[in-house]
């Protein structure tokens, strides 16, 4: 089989790349190969499928009409086994071979399993695919107790769902605080208090030494020797890019596929975008920034480049960003919260409200809030544009939402 454009993957980066290609090239054969058997969906929706807030038949990001109208061949259930860049070809696990002129790798990431003794021998869940979500939803319905390993976004979402379903949940996290990738300790404490109030047991600064099967469930032993028995074990200790099938292909990888500012890999005619790509970080280095808006942006850039758009702008660099709802409350984080030389920190808040603004050289470096809505898109733009906030600094610190809106509505005109 041959297709001018082949995109491996079917989530945000892949779909935006396909849309971008069709903006420039309405006719070149375009094929999406994806391991998943389902219509395209977002990994971000999975916790909501677990909770039942979203329904599996209502979360498709594109329907058959879209693929038909845009002349895109969507091939589900097509897992790629190997890449041969010399022949510009892909071999599927089914043995089928596809040849491409231009290839985008947007295979995303898979759960990274921690080195816990006995983990391979006990039944446990992960949450990265729609099938995972269905399994977990069913398991929660039958469980009375659960262990969530890892207090990142997926783990915290899942723990909340379990608590709401009446399951006794223990969250085990190696770091001293939850969501430490996004929030400073004070903010995390507000989130932790909310979870504790809702009956979730948080075992922070703890690691799992050993698990063993106990009946239908498991018995976990913490590093400090304590044991917890649970009907259900959910492992969400982060993800790792899906790059196994690239072994021996000559493509440069570090944590993910190394790409330049146009999402090009070191090999000709091969691009990478989304959670599988390791691209420029806004503040230096090359990072895998596994967040949805990042995948959207990178997918677009890759797609435009693949279609030969002369006007494509380079990737400005990855900024950490997230919006997180928990028990009806909102946490937002854009940029970084680090302190240090030359950083100016403005922190305020109360029992369940929090705001931290980090400025450097008069520019925004990061903002994190809890129950204090700020427009993440505006904050992101202020960072990316390196907007000089010095003339309005005091006002911005006092009311970042209002001043951010004022500034952006002024800047765009």
């Amino acid at each position, binding site marked *: 089989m041959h297709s001018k454009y082949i995109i491996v993957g079917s989530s*945000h980066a892949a779909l*935006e790349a396909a849309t971008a290609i069709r903006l420039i090239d309405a006719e070149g054969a375009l094929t999406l190969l994806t391991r998943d058997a389902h219509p395209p*969906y*977002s*990994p*971000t*929706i999975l916790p*909501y499928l677990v909770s039942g*807030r*979203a329904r599996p038949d*209502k*979360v*498709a*990001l594109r329907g058959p009409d879209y693929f038909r109208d845009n002349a895109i061949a969507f091939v589900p259930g097509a897992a790629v086994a190997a890449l041969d860049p010399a022949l510009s070809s892909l071999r599927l696990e089914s043995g089928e071979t596809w040849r491409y002129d231009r290839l985008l790798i947007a295979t995303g990431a898979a759960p990274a399993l921690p080195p816990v003794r006995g983990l391979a021998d006990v039944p446990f869940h992960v949450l990265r695919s729609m099938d995972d979500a269905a399994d977990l939803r069913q398991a929660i319905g039958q469980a009375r107790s659960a262990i969530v390993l890892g207090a990142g976004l997926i783990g915290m979402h899942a723990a909340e769902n379990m608590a709401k379903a009446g399951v006794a949940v223990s969250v085990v996290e190696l770091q001293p605080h939850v969501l430490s990738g996004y929030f400073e300790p004070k903010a995390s404490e507000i989130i932790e208090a909310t979870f504790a109030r809702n009956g979730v047991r948080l075992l922070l600064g703890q690691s799992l030494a050993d698990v063993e099967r106990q009946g239908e469930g498991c018995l976990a032993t913490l590093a400090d020797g304590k044991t917890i028995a649970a009907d259900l074990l959910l492992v969400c200790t982060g993800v790792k890019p899906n790059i196994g099938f690239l072994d021996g292909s000559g493509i440069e990888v570090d944590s993910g596929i190394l790409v330049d500012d146009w999402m090009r890999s070191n090999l000709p005619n091969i691009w990478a975008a989304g959670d599988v790509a390791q691209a420029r970080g806004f503040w230096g280095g090359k990072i895998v920034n596994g967040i*949805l*808006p990042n995948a*959207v942006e990178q997918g*677009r850039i890759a797609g435009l480049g693949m279609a030969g758009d002369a006007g494509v702008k380079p990737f400005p660099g990855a900024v950490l*960003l997230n*919006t997180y*709802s928990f028990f009806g409350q*909102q946490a*937002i984080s*854009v940029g970084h919260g680090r302190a240090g030389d030359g950083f100016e920190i403005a922190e305020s808040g109360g029992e369940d409200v929090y705001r931290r603004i980090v400025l450097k050289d008069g520019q925004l470096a990061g903002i994190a809030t809890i*129950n204090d*809505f700020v*427009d*993440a*898109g*505006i904050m*992101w*733009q202020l960072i990316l544009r390196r907007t000089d906030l010095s*003339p*309005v600094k005091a*006002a911005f610190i006092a009311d970042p939402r*209002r*001043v*951010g*809106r*004022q*500034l*952006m*509505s*002024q800047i*765009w*005109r």
Partner: protein
Amino acid sequence: MGKCFSTLQFHASRCDGCGDCMTACALAKADTGDPAYSRIRILPKADSNGVELALCRQCADPICVMNCPSGALSKNSDSGVIDWAEGQCVNCLLCTAGCAYAGIVYEDAVGHVTKCDLCGGDPACVKACPSEALEYRTASRIFNAYADKEDMFCRGLAACHGCNSELLIRHTMRMVGPDSVVAAPPGCIPGMGTVGYNGQTGAKVPIFHSLLTNTATMLAGVKMQYNRVGREVTAIALAGDGGTSDAGFQSVSGAAERNDPILFICVDNEGYMNTGMQSSGVTPYGSWTSTTPVGGRMQGKPTEAKNLPVIMAMHNCSYVATASTAFLEDYYAKLEKAIEVAKTGMAYLHVYAPCPTGWRFPSAMTTQVCRMQVRTNFIALWEYDPGNGLRFTHPVNRPEPVAEYLKLVGKYRHLSEAQVAHIQHTVDAKIVYLRQLTQLAASRGP
């Protein structure tokens, strides 16, 4: 062709920040006057005087939609609105990370994200705005209706840079369509190549180069012949103001009096612009032209322009209207009527065509000059038919001073304050006169 959509336009310079739009929005969307519920936000500027607007732009490449993991947001291909499906939204707020304009935001009081939906095409904020700072622009329907229609003129017409006559005739003939015959007396329109060069034509429909003096009668005769052989065509004249108001007037007047079934369009650039910018009967007072120079004895044209469209209305022919290319929706509505009317009687359209070459203004300013003609009431947009009399189609109740228009145009550069005051007086008097005509129509009753 793609599709265009209606949109909200914000004129920051007219907004006084009263906030009535926000109250109206909150009332329409949440049945409360609390502006926290408003989806439109007027904000004072951060570092200077004035206001800005935070509102959903209904983007063509909406990042909010791309960022939505649940399929709750989508671009509506009929209305162009970014639709939000409450049932599918999981309140993850990732859409807000995609918007640089605070067009989709979360409010604690509301409990979910909200965004402008243009009230289904009838925005409450626009109706509530007391200073005309918000406008709902629907010109997109012109594009949607006519962009796919064939252009009846060939490429490469040699109009001057910035000329709106070419724009006008291409728009016009797109709507009139192929079943038509065009008369073009001497003037800029034939001069730019519509009647062709070297035995080739510039139009895709029959077009003939009449004399300045006989356009209307010749066209009426051609139309009569088409009627005789049983072919329905639109007989249309694309004439200048010279070919209409001066040398051409007796035949135009005669056709109007007989109510001949033709569509006569006068493209008024206030003089003989393609022969060296001589003055015509409709050149306004004070204008510099090559025959009304500025010097020791004369300060531009010493006499007033005759009000040609009103004179045409006084003939009681079937339809008379004025138009400006800065207000194309208005023009399209009138052209539609005129085409229909011209099947049985005479329709006369008087379209103003500011001339960058002859009036001495930069070619990029044509549409702005057209717009200011209307905003200052230098010209009024109206229509007339014998049954309903005269009515304004775009009344300007708070006109800007006419000096704001005059200063854009080089042919008025020499004007003294007294001359400007004189022109302002003439403009005011003309509007009073037209208003009296509208009242006459109203008092006549059904």
